[in-house]
């Protein structure tokens, strides 16, 4: 059976869908988002990164420590971890979320784990960037209860520039899944000046109004954790420090979608 490479398993994940969930983070991502806050999830293989620990109080990076991200696991290994919190999923109508990186990069492993989850009766969610062959989505879509589908930018030129790939596959897959009637929660990361612009949000609204079955939206405020990680890993912060949106700003953006009948959640 296929093995997979994961870089984290988070239990009591309460912001990735309904109920109490366990989120498994798959390593490897086809995108190259400038703001990526999980840089350790980009490469497909396990990797050793030198981590610089921030010294308390002062802003200097001091200690250097090697840390390996990613480990090879069997389906059974992952299922053993997943099964541990079954009592919590049952109680809260929660389940398992596959995130990353991009889980679709490890198709065979993902497919096998999803099958195992279904055979155990667990609810499943797939957190995806959408950049994967449509056939692959066809293959697993029946095993996924809902998709957490990232939608970043509609303007393809800017998409290529900031994310490294064209968005055509992403938009096509979204249309395909929505037409098949899958439950989709759109996740829009709000990156100041990039995705969080009036024009882009207007484009997104226009696009999703043209497709069926997408009623739920999560607006993800800018997460400073990414900057912290870049520092820790000694990576360059191309964007420079950005500010997290204020509650009032977020409410305003949410209202824009709500007024068009969408169920909007901030965060999660």
């Amino acid at each position, binding site marked *: 059976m296929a093995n997979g490479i994961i870089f984290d398993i*988070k*239990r*009591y994940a*309460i912001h990735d869908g309904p*109920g*109490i969930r366990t989120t498994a983070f798959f390593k490897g991502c086809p995108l190259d988002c400038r703001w990526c806050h999980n840089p350790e999830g980009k490469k497909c293989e396990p990797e050793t990164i030198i981590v610089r620990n921030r010294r308390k109080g002062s802003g200097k990076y001091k200690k250097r420590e090697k840390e390996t991200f990613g480990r090879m696991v069997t389906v059974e290994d992952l299922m053993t971890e997943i099964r*541990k*919190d079954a*009592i*919590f999923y*049952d*109680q*809260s109508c*929660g389940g398992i979320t596959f995130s990353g990186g991009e889980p679709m990069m490890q198709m065979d492993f993902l497919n096998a784990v999803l099958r195992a989850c279904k055979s155990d009766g667990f609810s499943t969610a797939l957190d995806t960037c959408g950049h994967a062959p449509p056939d692959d989505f066809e293959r697993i879509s029946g095993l996924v209860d809902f998709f957490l589908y990232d939608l970043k930018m509609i303007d393809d030129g800017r998409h290529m520039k900031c994310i490294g790939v064209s968005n055509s596959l992403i938009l096509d897959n979204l249309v395909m899944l929505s037409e098949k009637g899958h439950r989709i929660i759109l996740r829009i990361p709000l990156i100041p000046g990039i995705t969080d612009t009036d024009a882009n949000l207007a484009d997104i609204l226009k696009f999703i109004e043209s497709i069926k079955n997408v009623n739920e939206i999560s607006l993800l405020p800018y997460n400073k954790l990414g900057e912290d990680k870049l520092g820790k890993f000694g990576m360059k912060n191309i964007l420079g420090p950005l500010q997290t949106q204020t509650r009032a700003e977020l409410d305003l953006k949410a209202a824009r979608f709500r007024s068009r009948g969408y169920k909007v959640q901030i965060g*999660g």
Partner: protein
Amino acid sequence: MNDRIKKLRRQSLNAKPSVSLERAELLTKFYKSGEAERVSVPVARALAFKYILEHKKICINDGELIVGERGPNPKATPTYPEICTHTLKDFKILNDRRKVSFAVSDKTRKMQKDTIIPFWSGRSIRDRIFEAVDPEWVAAYDAGIFTEFREQRAPGHTVLDDKIYHNGFLDFKRDIEQSIERLDFYNDPEAPAKREQLRAMAIAAGALVLYARRHAKKLSELAAKERDAPRKKELKEMAEICEKVPARAPKTFREALQYYWFVHVGVITELNTWDSFNPGRLDRHLLPFYEKDFKAGILTRERARELLQAFWVKFNNQPAPPKVGVTAEESNTYTDFCLINLGGVKETGEDASNELTYLILDVLEEMRLLQPSSMVQVSKKSPDRLLYRALKIIRTGYGQPSLFNTESIVAELVRQGKTVQDARNGGASGCVETGAFGKESYILTGYFNLTKVLEITLNNGIDPLTGRQIGIKSGDPKKFKTFDELYDAFEKQLQYFIDVKIKGNRIIERLWAEYLPAPFLSILIDDCIVNGKDYNDGGARYNSSYIQGVGLGSITDSLTAINCRVFDKKDISMTAFIKALRANFKGATRLRQVLLDETPKYGNDDDYADDVMRRIFESYFRLIDGRPNTKGGHYRINLLPTTVHVYFGSITGATPDGRKAWEPLSEGISPVQGADRKGPTAVLKSAGKIDHVRTGGTLLNQKFTPSLLADDDSLVKLGHLIRSYFKMDGHHIQFNVVTAETLRKAQKNPEKYKDLIVRVAGYSDYFVDLGVDLQNEIIKRTEHGLI
């Protein structure tokens, strides 16, 4: 909160705790009079009780609605020299210490020196206990293997049921007289002794009525002098109420509260019952009065709220009596562990939550007082609304209420042999202790330091702190070939110390039964009147004795570490390991890092460690549960620490889990501070592997930062987390909802954070009143908000 309550609350918060010798002086006067020598011990105790209530100052605070103070003024705290007589040095410590201090005046000091100490020296139960117990007991006690509650506080762990709401003390007196009439002096050899107990109860019953009527008289006098017309009317009403209750059963909501309060003052004046005497299922007991008064148009929801708030203030006016010596260290707090139970199920098994449950939750949220403590019993039948209401209060960082699992409480009590009805009418008290309210004497006899026993085992019976042989010779650990050999040696030491403790307990139980019966408390607990026996002598329907295991996380991680490193991975020899422990990991930094970071720990849902925990639990249970006490009942176990894990840590050297010498041990069934790295579900799964139903209570502390609970969706998920834990039979869970940053700030600027209440163990306390070690430990407890 209206102006009156604001004022009463402020009066209570501003009152400075002090030592009052009023009770000690009256008690000594009575015993010196010679009257005690002419009667039996129980009758003398009852007469002494009566003498105190006849002569103590009647205190009516300005604006109050419920009357009765244990001392001459709010927070004037009596001493109990017949139990333990404070030395002048004790008084100096109490007066001078920065935390939890009690003001001691010069007059008090002089009185203690000239009158109290000379009379009670050698007669106090503390003196008698230390004289009667074996040298082995003293050696283990001194080494910090266990503590002993009853050397300075009375064995009082009990809570009231609903009997006082149906009977007046005149009714109880009639029951007592009937019980005397039924005595069979021809066939029952104990009949004469029973008659003395019952006579004593009758005297004590009369004493409380007399005490209430003294209040009625004083209130009438104040009413006559009062110029403010509404207050005048109020004082007159209060005087009428104090004439009626507790002589007769209460008829209104207000009478019920006043009645209970007189009973409360009675119980805590008779003896310094450790601990927690309280009305128990208050929302259930008061509901009939609330509904009836409401219908009759004599009570509004707002008036009920005001009366409850006034009632709350009365609890806060009574700090726990000042302790001495080791006990002062083990439980350093003003709180006296009154744990009001809300929710749960009715006697019939149906959901018991009602309108009053929510009103009382409003009251405690608004009052934010240290005392009384409160908890919500969450049954599978409880509505989610109740759970979420409780969580919304917890979210504010007040540390109350704590949450208990009704199904586990009932199952625990039934397993111990109680009827299902008695179990359903029961609950938890003190920190987390299960009891059949109104029908059980469940005595905590002392904390037991499981981790210290391993230290003794690793030194073949010697306490490395003193070099004394205090345990048995269980074998040279360096020669053990397998983990099982080590574990067997540990279990032998464990058995030895538990035997020493139980042997001592038997002596202590008898001393209490003989010298300090509690006739007043006996009136209140079934079936002391019917049996003609005292509460302290097996008169109650159920009589349980507990030895509370402390440091389950520390002992589990320590044994797991030896199993893993010495026997499994074999990367260190036992000889080198023990050497590193003796050196407090000096020169063994790498080893300590491996122990802390790369060795399995309890609290991560890892069976490698959790199986060791299961094994320790089974040993502790098997060595204690079911052994008879001297009162017709049995020994049981529970797992809770109050704050003793700090004291126990302070006398325990470095441990194999990587803990340095003298640092606190883990508390309750919580993982070692910072050892749980896999989030709250993993902690609950590990804790769920304990067979809670075979205990009489376990304590699990979880710390959440407010950010994790900010939105209602997170709150709902926390609710699911709790329900899941309770599905696993988890007994209790409580939350500290504060940030470490806030706590650090509070540590630096205590004056700015005087109102900060944190959950310490089974209770909450003002953070600034805690010692620095305990403060640090609370800061260290894993912050799940960071996950």
